[in-house]
């Protein structure tokens, strides 16, 4: 339950609705406990003799009280449940803000589905604690106290007798609660077994079909399904008894009141009206007792969910602003000084399964402003990782990455990243218009700027063919772009912000060589003016670069320009030969 403590600051932000709502709750409950008193007076007056107009008065009194109660109940709900929605809003904001601060390594560790379920289910469960979780217990306490006080005022003897069953109720709730909780956990386990089986079955569907294992799989599923069924029935047996039992025990109180209280009326220790009022109070106590178990459940779930939320809310971003605020603009001289890197998370990139493998080892490299440097090498040689260190998607494990002679870790992220346009391998577009996607980094860009960027990325003719031109929506609610179109859109996005440093990570892999050449020609004007890091599998892409670095196993094994590397007849030359062969093959 201590997990829920961290909700207090959130609730404290809304003192007014909370206090007023609570006051409304008290007043509403105060009004409702008066009603039996009116009944008592009416019944007693009826036994003693009364006028019709007085009866009408009692009737109006009941309606009047109900109106007051209704008024306060309205505000109680509106304000108290309202607060829970306010806090939910704040929690959602904090959650999202936290996600925005987390670095790529966080997203490697956490699956999207997991984060999504926290953002929806867990926030929902926590909200329940604040809304119904506050209102119902408060109601319960007030009603219980109020009803019992009035019952005592009528007769302490009858109160004791009628409430003799109360300990039984609380014992029942406690005992049943423990068993229910346990059986519920079993059900959850069985449920995840089923879920795992289905998951495995679907991911292995081809094997299942190839070996005609459908029936065998069905049998296996049948077993799990059956075991889930029986664990559910185990809960049903308890659950089925729980509420009827509660109702019976509480009903027993009424029977006792009828039997004992009736005698008291006959003995004239209480009036008949008081007996009727007593019934009314007992009736009032029914719902809170039944709600008790439900509220406990809300708190248990809420605490578990809060714990899961806290895991995200307390996650510290690995990559934070550097302290040096003196630099405002960067020229784009990049230096790697003895850089080594390993991915720390278990699910490291580039196929490193043990996580400890070094992806980069002792890389030294200087790139002058305006230079175009290309990185080639096999998959997993460390090309991508090297470029990722510049905009600080990751920080070097050892050594330093410097921009304009300053360690990137000392710079504010804003300063650093506004100087770097990085186009990652996976071209990601938002479900917005193509225009908004291109102008993503500079929403204020003019139409001319957007069109120029599109032209440079070789996307302009494609856009002209889209149904709504630049306003065409992309993604789920719009058109689906081809891989090549997506890549070019992401290039346009980067080119538009005109950064001093441009990093293109294998961004032309989905376009054919001809289109590639055309785009490179268009881009050459852009590239000449800025420091460019170019990662590619294709020799044709990197041929023109000022400097080509060949990476192998995390080290720069060859460096030079196209001609000098060919002359060296090493890895680059062999890559070149293979590529010529591939091109030949493609032409056949």
């Amino acid at each position, binding site marked *: 339950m201590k997990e829920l403590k961290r909700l207090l600051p959130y609730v404290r932000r809304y003192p007014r609705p909370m206090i007023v709502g609570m006051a409304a709750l008290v007043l509403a409950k105060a009004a409702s406990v008066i009603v039996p008193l009116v009944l008592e007076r009416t019944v007693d007056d009826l036994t003693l003799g009364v006028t019709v107009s007085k009866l009408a008065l009692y009737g109006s009194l009941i*309606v009047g009280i109900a109106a007051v109660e209704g008024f306060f109940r309205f505000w109680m709900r509106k304000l108290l449940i309202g607060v829970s929605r306010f806090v939910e809003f704040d929690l959602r904001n904090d959650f999202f803000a936290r996600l925005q601060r987390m670095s790529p390594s966080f997203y490697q560790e956490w699956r*999207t589905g997991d984060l999504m379920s926290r953002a929806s289910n867990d926030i929902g469960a926590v909200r329940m604690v604040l809304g119904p979780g506050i209102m119902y217990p408060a109601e319960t306490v007030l009603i219980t106290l109020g009803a019992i006080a009035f019952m005592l005022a009528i007769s302490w003897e009858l109160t004791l007798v009628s409430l003799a069953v109360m300990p039984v109720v609380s014992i029942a709730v406690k005992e049943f609660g423990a068993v229910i909780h346990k059986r519920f956990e079993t059900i959850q386990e069985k449920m995840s077994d089923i879920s795992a089986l*289905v998951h495995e079955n679907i991911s292995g569907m081809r094997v299942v079909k190839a070996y005609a294992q459908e029936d*065998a799989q069905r049998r296996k599923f049948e077993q799990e399904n059956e075991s889930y069924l029986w664990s559910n029935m185990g809960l049903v*047996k308890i659950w*089925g008894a729980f509420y009827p039992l509660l109702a019976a025990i509480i009903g027993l109180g009424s029977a006792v009141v009828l039997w004992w209280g009736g005698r008291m009326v006959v003995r004239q220790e209480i009036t008949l009206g008081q007996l009727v009022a007593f019934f009314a109070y007992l009736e009032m106590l029914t719902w809170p007792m039944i709600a008790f178990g439900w509220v406990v459940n809300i708190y248990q779930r809420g605490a578990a969910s809060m714990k899961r939320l806290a895991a995200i809310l307390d996650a510290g971003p690995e990559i934070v602003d550097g302290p040096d605020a003196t630099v405002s603009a960067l020229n784009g001289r990049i230096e790697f000084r003895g850089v080594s890197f390993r991915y720390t998370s278990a699910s490291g990139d580039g196929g490193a399964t043990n996580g400890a493998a070094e992806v980069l080892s002792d890389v030294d490299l200087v790139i002058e402003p305006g230079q175009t440097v290309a990185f080639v090498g096999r998959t997993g040689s460390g090309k991508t990782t090297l470029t990722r260190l510049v905009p600080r998607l990751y920080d070097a494990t050892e050594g330093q990455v410097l921009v304009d002679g300053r360690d990137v870790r000392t710079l504010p*992220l804003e300063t650093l990243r506004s100087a*770097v346009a990085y186009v990652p391998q996976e071209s990601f577009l938002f479900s917005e218009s193509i225009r908004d996607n291109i102008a993503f980094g500079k929403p204020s860009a003019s139409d001319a700027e957007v069109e120029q960027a599109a032209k440079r990325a070789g996307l302009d003719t494609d856009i002209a063919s889209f149904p709504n031109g630049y306003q065409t929506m992309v993604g*789920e609610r719009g058109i689906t772009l081809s891989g090549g179109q997506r890549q070019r859109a992401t290039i346009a996005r980067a080119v538009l912000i005109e950064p001093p440093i441009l990093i293109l990570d294998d961004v032309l892999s989905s376009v054919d060589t001809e289109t590639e050449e055309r785009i490179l020609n268009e881009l050459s004007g852009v590239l000449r003016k800025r420091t460019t890091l170019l990662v590619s599998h294709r020799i044709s892409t990197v041929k023109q670069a000022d400097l080509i670095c060949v990476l192998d196993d995390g080290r720069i094994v060859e460096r030079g320009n196209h001609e000098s590397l060919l002359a060296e007849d090493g890895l680059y030359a062999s890559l070149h030969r293979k590529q010529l062969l591939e091109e030949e093959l493609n032409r056949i």
Partner: protein
Amino acid sequence: MNAPFHEEEALGKIYDRRLMRRLLAYLGPYKLTVVFSLLLVIAASALKLVGPYLTKVAIDDYITQGNVEGLDLVALLYVLALVLQFAISFFQVYLMNKAGQRVMFDMRRGIFAHLQRLQPAFFDKNPVGRLVTRVTTDVDALNELFTSGVVTIFGDIFMLLGIMVVLVYLDWGLALVTFTVLPALFAVTLIFKRRVREVYRKVRTRVAMLNAFIQENIVGMQVVQLFRQEPRKFAQYEDLNRQHQDANLESVFQYALFYPAIEFLGAVAIALILWYGGWQILVGGLTLGGLVAFIQYSEKFFRPISDLSEKFNILQGAMASSERIFKLLDTEVTVASPAFAPGASARQAERGSIRFESVWFAYRNEEWVLEDLDLEVRPGETVAVVGHTGAGKTTLTSLLLRFYDVQRGRVLVDGVDVREWNLQDLRRQFGMVLQDVHLFSGTIASNIRLGDREITDREVAEAAAAVHLDGFVAGLPRGLEEEVKERGSSLSAGQKQLVSFARALVHDPRILILDEATSSVDTHTEILIREALERLLENRTSLVIAHRLSTIQKADRIVVMHKGRVREVGNHQELLARRGIYYRLYQLQYKDQEIAVRNPY
């Protein structure tokens, strides 16, 4: 991974007759249980009416008469009614839950069975996670509908009617006066229902929008951060969040209005009873006990109505879930066995032959992966298929096993079109080893045997030995019975391959399809795999998508695929001499292996 929340957007119906009818059909097999449960509900509801009446009797006949002894009997009856009510309720809840759980069991079984029938093309389009949800969460959402929804509503309706009958019986005049609140009650409930439906739809849409936004931002977070658009995206998010909050506050408002309104009408009813009933007592038309009973009945009358909102929630959830479930169940099975498939014995003539005749195939539209492809594998022959990435090699295996159907041309196995085979019979002809080895949870032995219960432990052990898995298995504490953890993460890539070899071997197929893995393994394992491969290819028709030079060289024929067609056929030396596609492929892909093999250390 694309927006699993998206599809929920459009669903907002509280009640859909078509869906409901289909759902209720599932109760069919348990008709008797359901009917019995309904009868019990009626009995339980009737028993709930006993209490107030006994109170009336106690007041009128005993308490006001000063007859204390008679109270004992009344109290006893009261307790008896309670005990009966408890017993009946328990039994009813148990029965109904049993039926409900059975229904869900059947549904899960039905969904799973349907999934087994669906073609791979379906799984290409639908993320695993979403399908798992259908079997688990969505089915569970129906739980409440079957267990508390349907039956409780029935019980509630019966109780409302029962109360009305009893009231009329007690005093029809007072009953009529009390009933004057009913029109208002219906009006309030109807208005509430309509409003809450609109608000509910709004909430659902906004939740979907919010979730889709979060999802998109999680996936694209790196881009947001690199372009420093966090503040802008946050502002957009906050706007959606606020819309979501507003919709919810609207729903809070509706509920905040509904509950007090119902309570108020209840109070009006009681006021009417006090006024008119009291008057009748004065006149002598009603007893005091009757008045008390009236009050207690009217309290019981209003409870189910204010519970209505809860019932709405149950219905809404169930409708949304069942719509998704039925949508899955309605997905057409496009690859199925023909209505009449001749038995395997009819094909003795051409055992173990494969033929592709002018096959055209595309996964999407007209993007042809295979264009007019012809290929034949004769019984007992080993054919190696080679080609550059994207040549369409793997597609061949998918067509043979009829994972997909060709658009034009024919694929023949044993001289019979695969579309005329019984699917299971067809697939039983093949042993298939895929590039990515899929291991099921269970033991190594169960992964070799799969579901075939006729395969003995001894055969499993022999197969394991034949593919050189025995050395590795011997080192495990429980040998072949060792658990495979988390889909084989405890096994190396090479070991997994050997397990899949053993799997194919033990099933002793007439035709072997092997898609060689490209992942590199250490030299020792490489040698084991090669020897195991030889053993596997012995004495059967084999089609190998080859990546190993050694495999290619041992094949009877090499078929070179290029851009969806067979371009060259021959043996290694012939093809090299031709200096065509194979020659280039060899230099590109296999030549390095030759060097590596010559100097394994």
